[in-house]
């Protein structure tokens, strides 16, 4: 049994709502991310997957709950301790245009986490940056240039080099390949999976693209309206999703397959207003198999088979 590197417990994030109330973006999330694994986090816009990724790194302050990283509670860290721990936790962003300072040289962008969080000397940083730029396939000479001289795929490589600069143990990749064309996306995905393997990284890979997640993740977690509704190994999940929402999500993905166009299960309706969520199960308003119980009682996330949990009264796979 692999130990958890990150353990989130009852993690709650709230935003001020339009009419003075609080909108709950994360509803008491419990999540373990195991040492060395890539956990794929999927869900649609507004489900809270980016909020969860950011809260784990304390880029967003949770309203309550705990985040244990390697035995320390991140939510209690302050000042220098927090800075030092941050070196272990890094992020790759979606937007390869917005996330790099256009005025700075690539070498300075990549060196920053090293200098700040690790307290490296200039000379050490210069050497590491050159190695990193080589590693991500840009070559050390890229260091003297500025972001506008690079294409979207190359900028994403720069973002990856920056995230790796402080030799982190844990990386959150938030829609890291979503803005790229498919031929470039495949290159960057291959690079990421090589780096994860070679450096023993633990990664939370957030994406709305189920094909991409299936390619890179060992386990899958699905979110809906601020809750995790299913966690399973990659193979178990794609073979037979246990939550009705997971099944609908998979069924909605257009597939490249010869023959007749298949029957899709088209999910009706849209995401409920997070400021005014339904009672009982949050998915019941769109669920094709909802019953009276789903209206009155909110299901808990429960383990239905080893390594497989689902938040549903009527899971679609047999319970062991």
């Amino acid at each position, binding site marked *: 049994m692999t130990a958890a590197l990150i353990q989130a417990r009852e993690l709650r994030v709230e935003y001020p709502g339009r009419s003075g109330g609080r909108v709950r973006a994360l509803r008491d999330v419990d999540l373990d991310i195991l040492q060395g694994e890539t956990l794929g986090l999927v869900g649609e816009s507004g489900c809270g997957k980016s909020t969860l990724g950011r809260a784990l790194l304390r880029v967003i302050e949770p309203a309550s709950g705990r985040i244990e990283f390697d035995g320390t509670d991140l939510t209690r860290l302050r000042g220098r301790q927090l800075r030092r721990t941050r070196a272990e936790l890094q992020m790759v962003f979606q937007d390869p245009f917005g996330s790099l300072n256009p005025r700075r040289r690539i070498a300075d962008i990549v060196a920053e986490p090293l200098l700040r969080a690790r307290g490296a000397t200039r000379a050490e940083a210069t050497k590491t940056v050159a190695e990193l730029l080589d590693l991500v396939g840009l070559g050390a000479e890229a260091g003297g240039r500025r972001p506008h001289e690079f294409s979207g795929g190359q900028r994403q490589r720069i973002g990856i080099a920056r995230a790796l600069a402080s030799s982190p143990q844990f990386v959150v990749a938030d829609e890291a390949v979503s803005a790229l064309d498919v031929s470039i996306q495949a290159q960057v995905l*291959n690079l990421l999976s090589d780096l994860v393997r070679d450096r023993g990284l633990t990664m939370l890979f957030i994406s709305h693209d189920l094909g991409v997640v299936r390619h890179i993740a060992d386990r899958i977690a699905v979110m809906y309206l601020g809750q995790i509704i299913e966690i399973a190994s990659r193979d178990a999940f794609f073979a037979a999703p246990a939550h009705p929402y997971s099944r609908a999500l*998979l069924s909605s993905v257009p597939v490249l397959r010869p023959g007749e166009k298949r029957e899709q299960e088209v999910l009706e309706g849209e995401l409920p207003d997070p400021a005014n969520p339904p009672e009982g199960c949050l998915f019941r308003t769109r669920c094709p198999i909802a019953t009276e119980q789903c209206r009155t009682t909110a299901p808990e996330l429960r383990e239905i088979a080893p390594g497989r949990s689902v938040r549903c009264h009527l899971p679609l796979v047999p319970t062991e």
Partner: protein
Amino acid sequence: MTSAPVLEVRDLRVQFDVPAGRLPAVDGVDLTLRQGEVLALVGESGSGKSALSMSLVGLNRGPRTHITGEAVFKGRDLVAASERELRGVRGKDIAVVFQDALAALNPLHRAGAQVSEMIRAHREVTRGQATSRAVELLGEVGIAGPDRTARAYPHQLSGGMRQRVMIAMGLANDPAVLIADEPTTALDVTIQAQVLAVLKRVQRDHGTSVLLITHDLGVVAEVADRVAVMYAGRIVEQGLREEVLFHPQHPYTMGLLGSVPPIDGPVVRRLPTIAGSPLTGVDRPSGCAFAPRCPFVHDACAERPVLRQRHGDAGHLDACVLPSPARVTARSQGGLA
């Protein structure tokens, strides 16, 4: 069975003046859209697919744009047509649905008013008739409470709802041709599935010919009858959906298909990739535009290949000089049998 052509594009070229010179966004395209079909124009960023479609309705005309060639619709050349003539065509005979509905809709007008405005711009009807037709149209595109939605402003609607309003506007005058430019790209998959279902249904009910611009091969597989693949302003392959997606002939199409990680079947550790990045500058090779990235490049590629039937079935065209056995090898390396 082949239906009659509705729109015939011949040797279309669209060039933009940029600081470095003239950018050949569309570089000599021949394309036919037939009655009642969904023709998908597929390509990556900068391949020229949007420049092509926008030039058909004169939406990218300007002092820095140079458009030559022909686009014949109902006996009239849209490239040579005056702006005044095009105003009579746009929204009436040829309608456009854009990707970004929030930007395309007027934020100050209610959804219903924007649909009825579209009707009144081209038809002699009373305000009341246009309003009730607008509500009908909103119902047709699968909006559950069309009366309520008609009174809403765009910002009060979700992305999926706004895209339906765009489609309702597109259909307002029962156009012969609907150009849908990445209509579901900004939407979540469950909402995308709803909108694609609406698009398919109205296309079938109205017999509309649809030119669907997309980068998403899954969407193509879901809705297209025929497919044209663009690379660097040129069409490199064209044919029936089944042919192009499952028996690709051009190495670029093969590479593109191989790069998409699927949601079923075996998981490969490394995805097949296409080396390098797409051409975006003003300088283009005189021969095959894909040659600099092609693993099968050879001497014959120095000459620009014409798009014609080579090794595919009838109507399956490609612009590649590769001989047949090499194509089989290429296909297996692209990751798709």
